[in-house]
């Protein structure tokens, strides 16, 4: 996609607004606007080109994973002492990204934040796809991935069970629970919109497909009442779930005694970092989407502004965690922690560390300025910087902790191989492939909630008058 070209084409049509919804939107206009994106054929060439690129990356993922499964994880740069490299970095990164969606739909729903409406659907989709990408890595990083089912509790012919004290088993439960709950939450939200698509579709086959997946939704008041209750309950359940998932992921590190891993600050720090990177990904997706699908009325300046603020806030939490981590390393008097911290500052991976500090701490401070928060393309750039930073953060935690731990004799280095890079970039392919399919076949904004928003904003206006 070429943003400049698109800017020229559409710049005249853009009317930026500072409300959560553009002016003049009606029930019908929002319904038609969003459902038309799905029901209009043929497909756009930009979408097709994007999908082709994503499929190319996905193919690379297949090649990379095929090689990993054929030869072994030895094709990556991992070794003893650095037993985890890119794979677990990617896992934590994707899981982190996956946190924004459910948080937006659940936490902001509980908080009755109206601005969640336009972004929650694709944020949830992003969550699911990110968790799917993340889930790939624990599988792929195993030495014998064909035995992955030994991590699942089932009565086997050996009479043995998973080892439930291992954070990796907790991960299995946490990630699969998160994926399942996000999926049902997302689907629940989709049901009324699928009914809209069913009702608006012209072709019989389209009607049938959307008819099946919408379960025969007819908007009955009684249904709406249970539906709303269900959404509320799911939101209430998802909020602690979101917090727990990255907490459990952080347990992968905190439970271990590796210096730089064994830290009680990790759970809140990881959760904040997850929201930070998650919102960055939402912005990364939302800004081009609103541009190319002309959604400025739905994803307004106010949305960008709010998301910028959330990023700033979580970024500051992360910054606090960084400072505390360093402080505790020195204050504790623990030789190993001190060395680990000094090694991060000045060791072989110091450049990576300082890059991450720039990306996560320094760069995002521009978000203090509302002009920046309301400049989509600067915001887009910041979101990319933050995502880079968050990936590097996980890399630094994993690699600098391991590469020089307790016994100096076994210190080593981790150098990624081309298969490391291919696997990582390949999952971007998987993610974007799924995302491209999503924006083509499902409404990327929750239509029934938009209608509700139209209703509420009109109500407010009348009340104000």
């Amino acid at each position, binding site marked *: 996609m070429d943003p400049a070209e698109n800017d020229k084409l559409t710049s005249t049509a853009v009317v930026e607004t500072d409300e959560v919804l553009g002016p003049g939107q009606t029930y019908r206009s929002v319904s038609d606007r969003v459902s038309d994106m799905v029901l209009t054929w043929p497909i756009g060439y930009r979408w097709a080109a994007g999908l082709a690129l994503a499929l190319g990356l996905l193919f690379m993922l297949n090649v990379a994973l095929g090689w990993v499964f054929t030869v072994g994880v030895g094709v990556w740069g991992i070794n003893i002492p650095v037993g985890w490299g890119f794979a677990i970095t990617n896992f934590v990164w994707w899981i982190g990204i996956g946190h924004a969606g459910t948080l937006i739909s659940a936490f902001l729903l509980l908080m009755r934040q109206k601005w969640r409406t336009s972004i929650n659907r694709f944020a949830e989709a992003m969550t699911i796809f990110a968790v799917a990408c993340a889930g790939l890595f624990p599988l792929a990083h195993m030495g014998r991935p064909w035995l992955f089912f030994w991590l699942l509790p089932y009565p086997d012919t050996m009479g043995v069970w998973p080892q*439930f004290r291992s954070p990796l088993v907790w991960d299995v439960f946490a990630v699969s629970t998160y994926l399942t709950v996000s999926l049902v939450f997302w689907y629940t939200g989709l049901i009324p919109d699928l009914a809209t698509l069913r009702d608006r579709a012209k072709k019989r086959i389209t009607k049938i497909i959307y008819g099946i997946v919408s379960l*025969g939704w007819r908007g009955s008041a009684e249904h709406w009442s*249970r539906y709303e209750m*269900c959404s509320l309950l799911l939101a209430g359940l998802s909020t602690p779930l979101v917090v727990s998932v990255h907490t459990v992921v952080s347990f992968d590190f905190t439970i271990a005694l590796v210096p730089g891993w064994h830290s009680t600050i990790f759970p809140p720090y990881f959760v904040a970092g997850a929201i930070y990177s998650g919102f960055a990904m939402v912005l990364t997706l939302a800004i081009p989407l609103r541009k190319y699908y002309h959604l400025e009325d739905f994803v307004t300046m106010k949305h960008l502004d709010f998301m910028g603020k959330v990023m700033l806030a979580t970024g500051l939490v992360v910054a606090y965690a960084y400072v505390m981590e360093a402080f505790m390393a020195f204050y504790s008097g623990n030789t190993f922690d001190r060395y680990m911290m000094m090694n991060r500052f000045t060791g072989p991976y110091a450049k990576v560390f300082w890059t991450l500090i720039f990306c996560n701490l320094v760069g995002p401070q521009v978000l203090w300025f509302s002009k920046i928060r309301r400049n989509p393309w600067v915001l887009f750039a910041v979101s990319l910087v933050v995502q880079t930073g968050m990936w590097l953060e996980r890399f630094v935690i994993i690699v600098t902790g391991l590469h020089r731990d307790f016994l100096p004799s076994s210190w080593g280095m981790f150098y990624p191989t081309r298969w490391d890079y291919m696997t990582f970039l390949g999952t971007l392919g998987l993610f974007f492939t799924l995302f491209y399919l999503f924006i083509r076949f499902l409404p990327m904004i929750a239509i029934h909630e938009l209608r509700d928003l139209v209703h509420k904003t009109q109500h407010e206006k009348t009340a104000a008058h």
Partner: protein
Amino acid sequence: MAKVPALYGLMAEFETPEQLLEAAQRSRDDGYRRMDAYSPFAVEGLPEIVVSSHDKVPLAGIVLCGGLTGTLTGLVLQWYPNVVGYPLNIGGKPYFSWPSFIPIMFELTILFSALSAVFGMIILNDLPQPYHPVFNAPRFDLASRDRFFLCIETRDPKFDIDRTKDFLIGLDPVDVTEVES
């Protein structure tokens, strides 16, 4: 042999949720009990008016039971292998080292609760139900777009095709149609 389709009810179409609310309220005041309202989004206060019976087990109750089942499943799932099925000395920890069982118990609680909520909602709503008489209403596709419908069903004891139709017309709808069963 052509069969004359039975009537499911009478459907009045409104343009705004406020009109629908008012119409529903008036129908209820008029003694109608078997009716339902259809809207493109959840209209606040509407269910209280049109729904006459309450669920025997509320959704929240189902979710609570699901959640407790999940907790218990998590506990048994970890207690049994570690204490009975195949106890192993893992890093010198006791067989029943319950603090490390908490994460999974928590996750299963959430999982079971969430699934109970969704499946509870679907089952209580009697879904999937791809065929429903109200879809026979000619303009009912607008119910998922921008129109609000009130349907008084024939099984209402007070239902009388002419009287009810008159009553509905009196509510100032866009249109009133007969819905085949």
